């Protein structure tokens, strides 16, 4: 049986005016690293809070480890590790005090589960007498992860653990998650960074409270319905305007150092586009077909 199951979960705020989560269903298998991918305000945090028994859904059911999130919330709280999006440890307590406090709250000790957190803890151990509020962003997240792991949870909920963290620390963080997964811990993680999606085994793309696609990243990419081109030139902003003026263009978005283009007829109209661009005085345009990224899929699915 899946470790985390959501069935038709809906959650509204302001007496039904704001719909944060809209009829969401998905399941996370035992030992899976599952990602919730979506922009800010997509409803990721609400889903996490419902699963970690902090919020009650308006309708639908959810189960964690086979326990109902409403009825058996005490059992769930015993078994899961939860790391909220906002740093939520005691800022005026030191690294060590935070860790041992949470260990004791879960009727455990640091020593008992040291093996699980060792890889992460050694990185923050030099600062163990420092107050948590004085740590850098990446260090804070590592400490929060340690505290969420200190009781050896079976399911780990991580709400945007890499937001506001530098690129190197982000990479390290995902490597840690992989190692935790190898220990058999089921991990549900959310992120607004599309490039992190491929680091998950399966993902759910979320937009405005609804799941718009679910599957392995490769699967979602392979279902991208069109050919995708990448266009580059010396005058990128003029290029964007003119590609969009090309009658057959379905979409054109700026993507880092290139523009990603799809055509409305699913044909390769690359040559026609090049001719069109020449009439607009673009002579150094470089166009090639590329494999779409999750972000391309997301933008396509959003429409």
């Amino acid at each position, binding site marked *: 049986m899946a470790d985390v199951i959501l069935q038709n979960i809906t959650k509204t705020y302001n007496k039904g005016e704001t719909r944060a989560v809209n009829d969401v269903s998905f399941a996370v298998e035992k030992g899976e690293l599952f990602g919730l991918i979506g922009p800010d305000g997509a409803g990721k945090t609400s889903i996490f*809070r419902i699963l*970690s*028994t*902090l*919020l*009650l859904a308006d309708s639908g059911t959810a189960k964690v480890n086979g326990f109902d999130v409403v009825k058996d*919330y*005490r059992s769930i*709280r*015993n078994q*899961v590790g*939860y*790391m*909220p999006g*906002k*740093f*939520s*440890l*005691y*800022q*005026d*307590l030191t690294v060590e*005090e935070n860790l*041992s*406090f*949470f260990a*004791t*709250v*879960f*009727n455990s000790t640091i020593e008992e589960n040291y093996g699980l957190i060792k890889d992460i803890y050694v990185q923050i151990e030099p600062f163990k007498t420092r*107050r948590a509020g004085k740590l850098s962003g990446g260090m804070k997240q590592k400490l929060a992860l340690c*505290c*969420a792991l200190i009781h050896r949870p079976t399911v780990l909920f991580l709400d945007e653990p890499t937001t506001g963290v530098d690129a190197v620390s982000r990479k390290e963080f995902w490597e840690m998650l992989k190692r935790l997964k190898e220990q058999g811990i089921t991990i549900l993680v959310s992120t607004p960074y599309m490039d992190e999606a491929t680091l998950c085994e399966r993902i759910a793309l979320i937009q405005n409270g609804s799941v718009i696609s679910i599957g392995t990243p490769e699967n979602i990419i392979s279902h991208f319905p069109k050919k995708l081109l990448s266009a580059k030139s010396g005058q990128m902003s003029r290029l964007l305007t003119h590609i969009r003026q090309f009658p057959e263009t379905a979409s054109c978005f700026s993507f880092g150092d290139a523009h990603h283009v799809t055509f409305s007829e699913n044909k390769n109209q690359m040559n026609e586009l090049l001719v069109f661009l020449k009439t607009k005085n673009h002579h150094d345009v470089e166009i090639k077909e590329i494999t779409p990224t999750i972000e391309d899929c997301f933008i396509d699915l959003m429409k």
Partner: protein
Amino acid sequence: MKQFIAFVKKEFYHVFRDRKTLLLLFGMPISQIVLFGFALTNEIKNSKIVVCDYANDVATRRIIDKMEVSANFEIERILMSHQQIEEVFREGKIKLVVVFPANFNNSLAHLNKAQVQIIADATDPNTAGTLTNYASSIILSYQAELQGLQKIPYQIEIDIRMIYNPELKGATNFVPGVMALVLFLISVLMTSVSIVREKENGTMEVLLVSPFKTILVVISKAVPYFFLSLINLAMILLLSVYLLNLPIKGSVLLLFAESSLLIITALSLGLLISNSTSSQRTAMIIALLGMMLPTILLSGFMFPIENMPLALQVISNIVPAKWYYIIVKSIMIKGLGFSAIWKETLILVGMALFLLVVSIKKFKVRLV
């Protein structure tokens, strides 16, 4: 139990690492006591008083001269009736009137005995008490002067009348009042932000997703403040005994026990506020404004409850500080034992239990 100790330890860390709050915690009672102490003991200078001298003889003139020399009084000599005196008091410009009856010196010379009346406006009991003391000591010094000269037991009887507040309530009773006020307010204020702070900082979010017991979390919040308040109490008592010379007539142990009861009541009330609000600011406002005024106005410390309208008298019964004020006065000033205050104690116990149970019940196991 291990969990409870971990919670308590954590709360102590919070308290001791928040230096500013700690300063407030100990600074407030000390400054209050010292402030009130000096407000009470300070000399009163150049008070306007009226002398009604119906005798106008050698003796009265001598006494009035002595009063004029003293820096405490500015004297106006007018003859007026008792009705007029009362009018003058109502205007509030005059605090004290000294009345010498006709034939003052005559009766002193022939009967060895004379009477003088001092009437004071006791709406401000401290000032009234001090001024009557000044006036009577001047009169008595004249009496001593006479006796020293002639070895005859002259006696000037001083008839002191306090109007508006004849019992002089509050004059020496400010220490129990400050104790009730400070212990109660500090305890409410400190705990009122304790739980809501965790909600605001987000730490409650992590804490909730753990197998903690509500009662442990709630009670552990109160433990550090309970001990700090007892230290505060000890400081207040030391200051009042050694700085203000107000001895504790009854049992110190009983006083501490009853104070613990008030502190627990106040802490429970603070926890209730903390559990019912969603921001530290709201909690502070409720604790400060919502508790300060009723405690000051309705505890009987500043204003006598007997003189209040019936509705306020009824409301004053739910103010814990009122009962504590009665208890402390009984122990400290009257030196009474437990048998005299068991009723008030029982009321406080009831309040503490009620508030604690409600605040634990009010604890939200989920985010709003």
